[in-house]
């Protein structure tokens, strides 16, 4: 029987003099429905997520900020599958922001997400990602941009597979803060 748990991570390090700081990291020992980075301090300028991930189904990796749900997100992607290049709006919009589409549940993908100016309380929040998944004869690479239609500072990020797909064992999710 699948043991589905929700991992919740609070910041794990004390203050540092470094400009690029690790805030929290987890490597999943079992399949997990969601991973939550909570209580994100507003002391950085940008955030970066570095995610090594596998899902129980071929679908999108998605995220929501501060518990914000339906109708608040936009994502656009440029996608290449080894033969053709296309651009599309992932089905994650408008209920979540997308971090890339995994073409098969049998392999790991990797995504690097930059969440820019996440702590300001004046503008909506923008993200960009680079994602890839190669399976020696199949796979894809994807650029994306995301928008959260909210001026609040981001203090929580919940990451999950779209449609209830679970994050698989050995997936690794790391959040970093970049000082300006």
């Amino acid at each position, binding site marked *: 029987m699948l043991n589905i748990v929700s991992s919740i991570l609070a910041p794990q390090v004390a*203050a540092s003099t470094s400009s690029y700081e690790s805030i929290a990291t987890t490597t999943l020992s079992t399949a997990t429905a969601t991973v939550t980075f909570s209580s994100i301090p507003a002391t950085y300028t940008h955030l970066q997520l570095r995610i090594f991930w596998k899902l129980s189904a071929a679908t999108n990796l998605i995220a929501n900020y501060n518990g914000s749900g339906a109708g608040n997100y936009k994502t656009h992607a440029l996608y*290449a599958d*080894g033969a053709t*290049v296309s651009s599309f709006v992932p089905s994650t919009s408008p209920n979540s922001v997308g971090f890339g589409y995994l073409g098969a549940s049998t392999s790991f993908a990797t995504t690097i997400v930059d969440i820019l100016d996440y702590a300001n309380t004046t503008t909506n929040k923008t993200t960009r990602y680079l994602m890839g998944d190669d399976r020696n*004869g199949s*796979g894809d*690479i994807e650029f994306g941009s995301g928008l959260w239609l909210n001026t609040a500072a981001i203090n929580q990020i919940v990451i999950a597979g779209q449609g209830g797909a679970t994050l698989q064992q050995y997936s690794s999710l790391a959040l970093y803060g970049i000082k300006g």
Partner: protein
Amino acid sequence: MAAGSTYTPIATTTLGSAAASYTFSSIAGSYTDLVLIAVGTVAVDGDSLTVRFNSDSATNYSTTSLRGSGTAASSARGSSLTSLFLGYGDGFASSAITNAIMNIQNYANTTTNKTTLSRINNAGGTTGVGAEANVGLWRSTAAITSITIGGQTGNLSTGMTLTLYGIAAA
């Protein structure tokens, strides 16, 4: 108590003479990800840089690329390759500086195959000019302890800088 550095230079070199390849060896397993940066020129215009892990030159590599040449966007795939590449369609220039960056994710784990994300930017050459992104796969569960960078066709030129960084986790 203050935390240590998270984005740490492991090693860097600036080639004092042309070389067929350069190897970062004895890479510690104490980081989460590695970042490899190459900046410089090559002997053969448009030449790609090969990247091999742990001296593996067998057909254990594959890649998918997205490339923009300035006139067209394209995608290509390489399967069962003998190396990964910094530039699978694009390459490094012989007379203008080209830069490339490769993120090597979860390099030290001994459970999964290794995945990379890379970008190359060649705006000043004659052949293999453009912007390109690649995902790469090394089908090995071994931890990466060495990285060898070489020219696919010719030498790396004098003055090329190769830098390896480690990114630590909390």
